[in-house]
């Protein structure tokens, strides 16, 4: 079905068979894309075309397509999740592009995120950082105290919530010239540091999570702020400052070093 305002586009897409193979950009054409389509629906159309033409469809991570699961991860025209602020790739719509435009699509690029295939990368490092301390040590028992037993100032609860909205997509790492994971780690550290439930283990948590972050091969933070700009959830750099404070004080005072 042809529409009057359908878009014809040239796509330059990173293709890589597996983590060992060498990748390269390939060129594809798509036509008559509805401006109301999402970017990933455009990718679906490309894949359908590739399958029908006997080619190999482009592998990419995606799932909820509502901007919340954190699966999608495309570096579009040199920006994590493409043009537009506070959106994930799946929330990007084709009305942001002009007819005849060429679009460059690459995977996240970071040493700690090896490419698995095409645009799919391995973000297991984030899971391992979480396993190092991203939790409150409380078992399921049914005997925890009543949820309203400890009032929490609304301002603290709201800040903790804002930090907790991180979706773990890795745009911060992909955007950082040092491939630093500080925004991701600091968001989790901050969420718990701001809540009374998280304070008990705050010192061990920050030390262990930072240690794991370093072990995974992420770079250091040099306060450029690209991560904050590209973060689809608007996670604030304030969290990195808070983590640095937490880390400093824990380094000097924690029992465990």
């Amino acid at each position, binding site marked *: 079905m042809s529409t009057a305002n359908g878009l014809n586009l040239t796509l330059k897409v990173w293709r890589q068979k597996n983590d060992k193979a060498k990748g390269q950009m390939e060129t594809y054409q798509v036509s008559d894309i509805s401006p109301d389509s999402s970017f990933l629906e455009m990718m679906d159309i490309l894949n359908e075309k590739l399958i029908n033409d006997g080619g190999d469809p482009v592998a990419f991570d995606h799932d*909820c397509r509502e901007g*919340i699961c954190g699966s999608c991860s495309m570096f579009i025209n040199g920006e994590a999740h493409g043009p537009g602020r506070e959106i994930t790739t799946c929330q990007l719509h084709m009305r942001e592009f002009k007819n005849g435009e060429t679009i460059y699509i690459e995977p996240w690029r970071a040493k700690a995120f090896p490419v698995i295939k095409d645009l799919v990368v391995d973000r297991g490092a984030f*899971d391992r950082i979480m396993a190092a301390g991203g939790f*409150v040590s409380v078992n*399921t028992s049914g005997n925890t105290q009543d949820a309203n037993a400890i009032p929490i100032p609304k301002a603290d609860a709201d800040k*903790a919530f804002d930090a907790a909205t991180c979706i773990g997509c890795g745009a911060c790492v992909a955007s950082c010239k040092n491939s630093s994971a500080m925004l991701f780690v600091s968001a989790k550290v901050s969420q718990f540091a701001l809540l009374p439930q998280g304070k008990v283990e705050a010192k061990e948590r920050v030390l262990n999570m930072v240690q794991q972050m370093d072990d995974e091969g992420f770079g250091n933070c040099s306060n450029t702020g690209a991560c904050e700009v590209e973060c689809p959830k608007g996670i604030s750099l304030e969290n990195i400052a808070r983590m640095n404070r937490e880390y400093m004080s824990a380094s000097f005072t924690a029992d465990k070093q």
Partner: protein
Amino acid sequence: MTKLDSKIPKGPIKDKWTNYKNNIKLVNPANKRSIDVIVVGTGLAGGSAAASLAELGYNVKAFCYQDSPRRAHSIAAQGGINAAKNYQGDGDSTYRLFYDTVKGGDYRSREANVYRLAEVSANIIDQCVAQGVPFARDYGGLLDNRSFGGVQVSRTFYAKGQTGQQLLLGCYSAMSRQIGKGKIKMYNRHEMLDIVKVDGKARGIIARNLVTGEIERHSAHAVVIASGGYGNVFFLSTNAMGSNVSAGWKVHKKGAFFANPCYTQIHPTCIPQHGDQQSKLTLMSESLRNDGRIWVPKKKEDSEAIRAGKLKPTQIAEADRDYYLERRYPSFGNLVPRDVASRAAKERCDAGYGVGTNETGEAVYLDFSSAIMRYGQEQANIQHIHNASDAKIKELGVDVIEKKYGNLFQMYEKITADDPYKTPMKIYPAVHYTMGGVWVDYNLMTTIEGCYAIGEANFSDHGANRLGASALMQGLADGYFVLPYTIGDYLANDIRTGEISTDLPEFVAAEKEVTDQIEFFINNKGTKSVDYFHKRLGKVMWNKVGMARNAKGLTEAIAEIKEIREEFWKEVKVPGSADSMNPELEKAGRVADFLELGELFARDALLREESCGGHYREEYSTEEGEAMRDDEHFTHVSAWEFKGEPADAVLHQEALNYENIELKTRSYK
């Protein structure tokens, strides 16, 4: 029918769960260390179960198809989680939550399960707060609540429009702690492709490593299916792209009964479909119905002018708007349950009053202008602004709405390029949740011994319609507070079994079945993509097995789905190879299962000759279009036993006995 024993404990309903817990067998801590449990799926049900079982001391192996357990689709739940805390002092209680859930489910759920759910609900909130879940709080620092459809109290806890995310990250944190300790072995990017039974008991699974394509055998003493719902049988739904029925369907094919497949929830407030290129629909939280008013024009010519782009909704005078939910259901108004709201929207659009400017023309308005003015006036009073202008009141009101629903409004604007602060949202119903699922008894065990189903994957708690904010409640109740007890009663018999060998012939046979199917797909070299078949199936399901069903349409659907399935097995084309990452191959297996489920679904809908909850049969309705139940013939669970083809499935019935709640015609008028 002898096989269907729901195992509901004896005694008064309020004592059943307590007495049950006091009398089950326990497994001592040393023995737990030699028992393995497989959990498939890491959403709220699977994640909470995996974490709790590992904390208890069992060796847990958890599987998810996503790259991390944190990405399961529970994460997308927006509005909230119900709990009978009665923090608002508005008359809530365990009994009232129980009653609302049974009534909301149109009297087609199991009383004892629902009561237990209501009973443990309060503890869920305590547990989540202890984990550091940042729920919304008021200025006094205490937890805030809001109201959801089908109830008259405020019992919904929330974290802005991201409650599912915050609860799932709570589970994921709890899992991460156990992964770090080695008590959970996490298998990311793995898909379960079959269950393995040894001597009639569930003893393991066959899984595919989605990165390398390797087929793996995993053994355990029990298998827990927590793989969510099957809404994607409709192709377009609010489910995640990868959400599928395969884990549930594979256990069904190996002996687990599948219950009430036709009970599907069509959510009233979703962003309307924009056109044929669409792959996925997006939900707008039910919480919006706290403040949004739903309407269409009273005059057909106004609707026509809007569809033609000649008139704007803001130009239609108050007197010319039909707030049809407030008109038809004055006591619940815009907060009627989802099934009722969805059908009412369809009724108006079918009658020619729809306002969609998209290809389908189907949409109704969800309007916040009255709420903006109401909140604005309240703010003006608080701030002592006397004689505030309408513009000032509006500004203050927008600010309040922004704080309450900001992220949802932003999401809407991103997708539609319309500003919902200025013009009403356009919404239309879409497939969202499936109440049906794998049949389980009170212990959450399926008809395969040692195989459990929890969360949306099972059928037990929501009857024919689920109330808003109850999915999160059920998922966490099953995983945190129910399964950890009930599974122990079963595993107590396995303390001397020792590790199950994956070299047993049953594992070899199950693996062969899996590899045969994969090889078939790769070698078939057909002419049409997997999506081609999935879309065709979805169209049949939506048009003939969707919001309104009738015998003629259902009969046609059964034949058409069978036809599509036969063509699929001849003509499907799967590119690439089996020994590497291959998303098309993954989809092929899932769609193959949807093509079987779809037919059973339609058969179930055809045989249930009544209207109840999400299942609406046009032949069984009043003149006003209200659903008509047939309690005499259909107060039962339909549980299907697999016998080869979907057409051969054998129907078993579990009678539903209402001892605590009187069966009544559901009324929200």
